[in-house]
Structures are given as structure tokens and as C-alpha cells.
């Protein structure tokens, strides 16, 4: 036994390489495959810079980034949900509902009993809006984890309910006056996305902060590990002491909060809050996550990839607008990019042995076919 054990442990010592380093001469392909979102982004920037003189400028990048920030925020919440093996179709509606909620609060809340109108300060608006987002998320989470409604169906339901609630709140109209009034002490809504800090749109900074927080949570906290374990194999995770149900509720709550933040940033950017804001954004958010390499079956994916995915979508669609491609073609391009990304995902996650086998068998036995 001893020599066998030694063989094993010396293999340990001599090859501390990670899973990515094991494929020998096939590395270039792997690097391209694993970094595909990154290379796609570079390619997009190069191509559009050649096609349009205005594309490659700091200002344009900042403008495009502030667009990316909106569905990027949704994508990050979505990533958490997808990592646990679920899906959150309600984020677009939740975002619209939260935007409207913020708009409503900014108009002042009249309390009939006392005959007064309360003007909550902007921080209170932010908190209340996030609470609303969390509440919608919690409904999703409870439906999925405790009542075992399939995530697709549960969040599809909330999608409709939240959208309907937003329309009911405003009667289909849009709040245009979000500036607040210095007399009431509720100014400052512009600082949630419209204004710039050190030349960078605040929305982009918020997006960056959320992304970093999420990256941290996924990589360095027990919660992050639980999220990956729940998505990889919920039964095994549960038997290892992972509070699977709680984790499921939490990811939907966080996704709801991300949607609320996105709603705030968007209404601040637009200086208006409409009930139809964010329609179909859930699909863009999912696309960002998928282009970023996450698996819809759960357990695989990371924030870095999702960020790249969001930027690929944002920079591509804005680039198409800038060079004047018709919006019909834009839609076609987006669709093609998403399918391509998922296609590459399935190549990447094919069981290793099969891929190794097929490449080796090409190398090893080009002849000898006598079946």
C-alpha cells in the first residue's frame, strides 16, 4: 500500500494546478472558451470603434456604463437566484413597481387622519423602496422554498402582480417630478443615478458597489458557499447542514432588493418614474448571467462573468444604436449573441471525460477503423 499512497501524495505535491491547468496542449482553446465574454467585449469595443468615431471616448463609455448599470444590477440579483438553481422572472416588474413607489413617496404622502402631507427625506424613500423590493422577493422565496412552487411559475406570477400593482398605483401615468422641494427637505433624488461623482455617473458607482459586495458575499462568506452548494445539489447540501430553505428565501430577497435599487437608479437617471419601466428587463438580466458563463441548472457562475455579460449586452446594443443599425436588426443581433453564449456554455460544461476522450481519440488513433 505504501508506494501507492506515496504515488498519490507526490502527485499532490507536484501538481497543485487547478482544474483549468490540466488539459496540456489544448490550452489556447480553453483560455478562449473560458474568457469568451471578455474577448467578446474586447471584440465589440474594437469593431464599433472602427465603425464609429464617437464610440471610443470616455464620455461614451460612461454613458453606456450607466445603461449597463440598470440591468447589470438586475443581473447580479439574478445571478444569486440562478446559482441556487432557480430563476427570477419578476425583477423587471419589481423594478418598475419600486420606481413607481419611489415616485409616489417623493410626491408626499398625505395622511388623512391628521390632514397633513408627509414628505419623507430621500434616504427614507430609498429604505422604503428597498423594503418593498425585499418584500416582493420574499414572496417569491417563500413560494419557491416552502410551498415548492416551481421558480419559473412563482416568479411569473409575481411578474404580473407587481406590474399590475404599479399600474394601479399610478393609473397608468408617470411621475415626472422627482426633484423634491428644498422646503420639505426631500431633495437629492438626483444623487441616486443622474448626477456624477468624480465625473462618474452615480448609478455606475452604485452598480460597482453592489457588484463588489456580491462578489465578496459569494467568495468569502458562508452564505456564498451555501448558495453554490444549494444549486449544485440541494439534498447533499441540506445533509451537510446548509440551511437550504433559508438560502433560497434570501437569494430572492436579495434579487428583489437589487431590482429596487435598479428601479431607484433608473428613475433618477430618467428623472421620472413610470409603471411600465423595466418591461422585459428580466430577460436581459438572464441573458447577462448566461453570457457570463453561469449554468441555468445552478451551482456554476460568478460575479465577474456576469459583469462581463452585462457589459457585452450593453456595449453591443448601444454600439448598434450609435452606428445606426435599425432596431429590428438590433433585436436579431441580441438573440444571436445569447444563443451563441449558451452554445459555448454547453461546450464548457460537457463532462470532462467526454471532451478529453474525443480530443485524445483524434490525436491517438487517426487510423485503425475496423468496425
Amino acid at each position, binding site marked *: *500500500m*505504501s*508506494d*501507492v*499512497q506515496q*504515488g*498519490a501524495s507526490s*502527485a*499532490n505535491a507536484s*501538481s*497543485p*494546478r*487547478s*482544474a483549468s491547468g*490540466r*488539459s*496540456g496542449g489544448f490550452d489556447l482553446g480553453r483560455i478562449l472558451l473560458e474568457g469568451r465574454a471578455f474577448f467578446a467585449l474586447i471584440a465589440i469595443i474594437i469593431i464599433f470603434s472602427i465603425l464609429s468615431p464617437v464610440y471610443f471616448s470616455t464620455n461614451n463609455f460612461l454613458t453606456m456604463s450607466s445603461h449597463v448599470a440598470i440591468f447589470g444590477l438586475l443581473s447580479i440579483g439574478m445571478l444569486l437566484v440562478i446559482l441556487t438553481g432557480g430563476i427570477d422572472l419578476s425583477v423587471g416588474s419589481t423594478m418598475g413597481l419600486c420606481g413607481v413607489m419611489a415616485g409616489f413617496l417623493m410626491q408626499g404622502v398625505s395622511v388623512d387622519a391628521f390632514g397633513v402631507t408627509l414628505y419623507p427625506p430621500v434616504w427614507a424613500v430609498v429604505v422604503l423602496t428597498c423594503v418593498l423590493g425585499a418584500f416582493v422577493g420574499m414572496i417569491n422565496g417563500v413560494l419557491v422554498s416552502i410551498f415548492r412552487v416551481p421558480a419559473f411559475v412563482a416568479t411569473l406570477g409575481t411578474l404580473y402582480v407587481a406590474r399590475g400593482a404599479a399600474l394601479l398605483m399610478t393609473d397608468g401615468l408617470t411621475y415626472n417630478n422627482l426633484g423634491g422641494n428644498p422646503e420639505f427637505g426631500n431633495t437629492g433624488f438626483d444623487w441616486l443615478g443622474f448626477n456624477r461623482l468624480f465625473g462618474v455617473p452615480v448609478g455606475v458607482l452604485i452598480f460597482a458597489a453592489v457588484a463588489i459586495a456580491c462578489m465578496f458575499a459569494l467568495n*468569502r*462568506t*458562508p452564505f456564498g*458557499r*451555501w448558495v*453554490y*452548494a444549494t*444549486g*449544485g*445539489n440541494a*439534498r*447533499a*447540501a*441540506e*445533509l*451537510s*447542514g*446548509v*440551511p437550504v430553505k433559508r438560502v433560497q428565501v434570501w437569494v430572492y430577497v436579495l434579487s428583489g432588493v437589487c431590482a429596487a435599487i435598479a428601479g431607484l437608479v433608473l428613475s433618477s437617471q430618467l428623472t421620472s418614474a413610470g409603471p411600465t419601466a423595466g418591461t422585459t428587463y428580466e430577460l436581459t438580466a438572464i441573458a447577462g448571467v448566461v453570457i457570463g458563463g453561469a*449554468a441555468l441548472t*445552478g*451551482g*456554476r457562475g460568478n460575479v465577474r462573468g456576469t459583469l462581463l455579460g452585462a457589459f457585452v449586452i450593453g456595449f453591443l446594443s448601444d454600439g448598434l444604436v450609435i452606428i445606426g443599425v435599425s432596431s429590428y436588426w438590433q433585436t436579431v443581433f441580441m438573440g444571436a449573441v445569447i444563443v451563441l453564449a449558451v452554445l459555448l456554455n454547453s461546450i464548457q460544461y460537457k*463532462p*470532462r*471525460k*467526454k471532451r*478529453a*476522450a*474525443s480530443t*485524445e*481519440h483524434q490525436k*491517438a*488513433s487517426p487510423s*485503425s*477503423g*475496423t*468496425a
Partner: protein
Amino acid sequence: MSSEESVMERPTRSGSETGEVVLSARNVAKSFGSVHALKSVNFDIRRGQVTTLFGENGAGKSTLMKILSGVIQPSAGEIVLDGEPVRFSSTVDAQRHGISIIHQELSLAPNMNVRDNIFMGRELGGPGGVDYAEEARETERLMAELDEPIGPLTLVEDLRLGQQQIVEIARALSVNSRILIMDEPTSALSASEVEVLFRVIEDLKSRGVSIVYISHHLEEALTITDHAVVLRDGAMTAWAERSEIDLEWIVRHMVGDNFDLGSPPTGHTMGEVALSFENVSVADVAVPERSVVDRLSLAVRAGEIVCIYGLMGAGRTELLECAAGRVSASEGRIMLEGEDISSLSIAERIERGLVLVPEDRQRDGLVQTMAVGENLSLASIGAFTRGLLTSRGREQAVIEASIRNVHIKTDGGAAGIGSLSGGNQQKVVIGKMLATHPRVVLLDEPSRGIDIGAKAEVFRLLAEGASNGLAVIYSTSEVGECLSVAHRIVVMSRGRISAEFGADVTREEIMAASGESAEG
């Protein structure tokens, strides 16, 4: 080494009588990146005979069988079928040549019923689409042959692991192949099912079917084998006919040393009762009126090792899962160190030192998307978390300690779970739970798929734990394993304890206690 020579001198008979070589691997090698799983192996399968393949975990047994059945392609060497070199591009291709395989890790679709699983991909056509009636009849016939009353319409996910294994066997039988490869077909079966399987194997042999059999239950394998081949570290180290081999021969060539499974640790004083079941019943999931565990009482003290022996379906798994909090008891209570834990969650029970090593590693033990290291540390995240954050360094220490303690053969903690051999995956599940530093550990068939060296290692770990005050309950369906480190052997049958023995019991007594009550 004399065994090497016997490989060279092995007689090559010809003619179409029993014993003729039908399928062989010639100088087959296989590497996965830097891992050389097989190094130039020669292996023959003979008509109407059983060839057994022995070897420790990660020796390359499954890899060789996957190559012979077209699941993967060799990096070098060739496969010769009836004297002609062939290449199988897929399992379907191999099946067309009459070769089928029962995989070590079950490959059934849990959401489909038994009939559809058996005929998956080969549905019987009829005038109006698939001929379900014929398929169901055939399924019933196969189940009768295997002596297992499973209805063709039962969902696979409702079956116990052992029953799933039987379905897997039935599927391989239904193909009517001339070469049947069985990679640890009995790891979840108990003695009586194994006996039935062996009857079936004898029958197949007499019909000229060649069989390759892999098992870590050495004695059991010896009873049916005609030839034995030992693989070690990807190379063939010995070959011999049945008449020349015995247990000692296998062990010597497999691991170089003789292992015994240890004896009950003595010399420490046993503590208080650590875990006790008081009149615990667990209802059957399918038929709630029926109890799979029936008013059972059992207590284990700190420092004591209790073995639960029983046939498949005796209620062992349910009992242990109930203690771990996976299923709840319909009656009675479970006390951990004098405290009723019935209302605690699984996580809370783990925190208090009660852990379960589940039976089905694929379904309940491993997170396939995570690396070996992350799997090993999953249950003890708290140990390397300070405040909100986990510490990479401390986690690495936990992982490395586990890899060392349970002797996992891996490329390092970052390797994917799927790159480990079956037995090594099992060791990951055991290592994960032991890393939580439990006070009571429940192991459901801990030796499933691990080689005797590792088995001895696991039992040694348990014995060592017990002498430091760990309370241990493990279940097994192999009598040999009852007679190792356990202080007490409890025989379970139909949800009840049918007998209880001390460490000085004999095999026969244990078998009788489980068998008799299963009849009556």
C-alpha cells in the same frame, strides 16, 4: 514478480468452446490530462466465464471497463473482439457488438418509471407507437428473475438505492448481450439479493455469456469467479485461475499487505448514553399507514461502536435519516446527550455533534459542481469562519487534513469531484462529516465502494474516535464488517431489532437472526 510471468505465459486457447477469448484489451492506456489512469493494460474476457477485476480505489478498474464498453476511448492500444481489432465510438456501438455495462454510479432517470428506464433508448415498437404492454410484461419477467417485487410502473426515485441497483441490473440483462460488464453491481445489495444475482450469473454463464465482475466484497466475488485479474495503479499486477487464488492472494496483490478490519477498541471507559432512540417509528413515504421503523429503541454510549446489520428494506437507512433530521419520526423521541432533538433542524444537529454519512453519495453526499476541497469543507464552514468571513488559509488546512486522514487519492483539493474514482468519492463524503469533529457519527453503509485498505482505514478512524469518546453507529449489509470494530451488533428486520449480539458473535448467528425473521 512471479505474477507478472503468469501474465506472459497465460495460455491462449482457441475454438468456440467455453473459455475462448472473446474480447480483449491490448496494451490499452488512458490518461486524463496528467493523470495516468491506465498504463498499457492487457485484459481478456472469456466465453461463458466470469472474470473478476480486483484493485484498490483509483486503480483504474472503472476506466478499463468504460473503454471496453465504448463510454470512453483509449489514449493508446486496441480492443480486439473475436480476433478482430474494433473501435467502439459509443456505448450504442458497443451494444450493437453485444457488450453492455452496469455502471458503478447508477445511471437511471429518477423521474421515470422502472419500465421506461429499462427500455430507455430501445423502446419496443408496436403498431400504435411504443408497445407499453409488452415492455411491462418483459419488465415483470426480469423482476421475477431477479426475485424483486418491483412493479413496472414504480417511479425510480421512490425506490431504495438497492432496488435501483436491481433495476440497473435488469436493464443490462434485458439487452441480451454476450458480454456483460458489472462494475460493483452489489455495493448496495445485501446477502440475499446478492445470492439471487449470483444465480442469474450462473444461468448467464451456462448460456455462454461472458461476464466481467468488479467488487470490493472480495469473498463474495471469489464465490463466482473463474479468473481473477488484479489492477494496481493503472497496471495489471497479477492474473490467475480460480483454483490458484484465495483471499490472501488477492489482498497481497491488491495492496501488498494483509489487512484485517480491526477489533473493537478497548481500554477506554465508555461514557454516558450519547444518542438514544426511544420507541421511534418512521412512516413509509409511499404508504403512510405502514411503518418502516417500528417502535424501535436503541442507545449508544460515548465511546461505543454499534453496528446495525440487516437486509435491504429493514429500515436501517430510515432510522439513521430520522436521527439526522432528514425525515421526522411519526412516534417516539430521539435523545442526544439527554436532550430531545426531535424539533432541531439538520444544521442544528450537526452543530451539536450529530452527523450522518448518507448511503447514496451521488444523491445525498456530493455537490457535483464543487471541487473536492469545497465538498470536504462544506459541513464545517463554521470552523474557518471568523465574523462574517471565511478564511482561505484555515479552510485549506481543514481540506488537507481531511485528504490525509481518509487517504483520498486526488490531484489536490481543487480537482473536480467527477475526476475521482468511486471509492475516493465515498471517502470525500466520510471525510466531510468527520471534519466537523462530531460526538455522534452515523454511517449508512460507509464501506460502499471502498477498497479493503480504505475500509480498514475508515474502521481504524472510527475505532480511534471511539477511544476518544466518539459514539458510532454504522450500518452494513456485509457480515464481515459487523465483526470488525463494533462492540455491539444489532440485527434489524422489518423496522425492528430482531437480535442483539456482543462482539463475540459468529457470522452464522447474525445471518440466522436477519434471515429467519425476514421469512416469518
